């Protein structure tokens, strides 16, 4: 019986050909989403005013929570971080199953993109927290589980740098990428599992209005494209570096 061959991802071809257009499309969509957030999506109402006031041609009856507009970048960036972590774990598992180093490269690049988006989620979330809650940090369940996720992603790269043997390094890294993925549903569900959590939950607060949903969708599509473009560019660089090293080793 013929031995089943494992198809390994490689740089080049159409996935790389569309990487730069995807990045450009992502930049355009996030810019459109940014404009929609400020020029189209209605601001969220805060406390009621003591009396209505005419501002421009709009009768304002509540305080306007402009800081909520951070949400239009915060949530899509968080979702992209989860997707990147899922890919990191998927390729980590593929490596553990096949021992093919290429999957480790894919996993490393996906985890790098994930760490970038995790850090951006933390920063955008923290800026909102500072204004709305008056503190830079609080041990709230969502924040705490997401901090753990960020620490796991950082630990992934610390571990990689600490192990010299490529086989062992990739094995440990594969396991850590799966551990990071395990924290994703915990992060996502924690506000539902612990109802006392003060982190805003869209579904709990009546869902999104069509203008909010459309804005989130546009930014999410843009961020997904940016994430994909970054992954392919970084993967191409990593593969070229590996091929260069292999050639140097052959010549020596």
């Amino acid at each position, binding site marked *: 019986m013929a031995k089943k061959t494992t198809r390994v991802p490689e740089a080049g071809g159409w996935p790389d050909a569309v990487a730069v257009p995807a990045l450009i499309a992502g930049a355009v969509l996030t810019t459109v989403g940014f404009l929609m957030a400020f020029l189209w999506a209605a601001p969220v109402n805060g406390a009621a005013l003591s009396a209505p006031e005419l501002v421009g041609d709009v009768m304002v009856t509540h305080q306007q929570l*402009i*800081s909520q507009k951070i949400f239009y*970048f915060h949530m899509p*960036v968080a979702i992209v971080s989860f997707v990147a972590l899922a890919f990191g774990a998927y390729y980590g598992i593929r490596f553990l199953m096949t021992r093919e180093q290429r999957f480790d490269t894919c996993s490393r690049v996906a985890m790098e993109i994930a760490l*970038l988006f995790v*850090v951006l989620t933390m920063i955008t979330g923290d*800026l*909102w927290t500072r204004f709305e809650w008056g503190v830079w940090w609080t041990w709230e369940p969502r924040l705490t589980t997401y901090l753990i996720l960020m620490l796991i992603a950082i630990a992934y790269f610390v571990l990689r740098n600490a192990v010299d043997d490529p086989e062992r390094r990739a094995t440990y890294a594969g396991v850590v990428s799966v551990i990071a993925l395990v924290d994703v549903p915990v992060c996502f569900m924690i506000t539902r599992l612990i109802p006392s959590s003060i982190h805003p939950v869209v579904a709990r607060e009546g869902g999104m209005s069509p203008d909010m949903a459309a804005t989130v969708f546009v930014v999410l599509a843009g961020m997904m494209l940016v994430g994909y473009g970054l992954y392919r560019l*970084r993967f191409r660089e990593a593969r070229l570096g590996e091929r260069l090293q292999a*050639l140097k080793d052959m010549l020596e």
Partner: protein
Amino acid sequence: MNPILADIYSTVIPSAPYLIAAYALVWAALLVYVIIVVRGLKKTEAQMAVLEEAVRAKGGD
């Protein structure tokens, strides 16, 4: 200032620095990452070209 307008602006003006920082940091971080990756890619491609040249020269000897 009209106290009602002051009440409206109390949640708008002070939040502006945080809002601007959040959007600017996301774009800036992504842009910096793109620049780092593209520079790395160009550097590796240049090294590859040098290596190919060296191999060709060695083959010609």
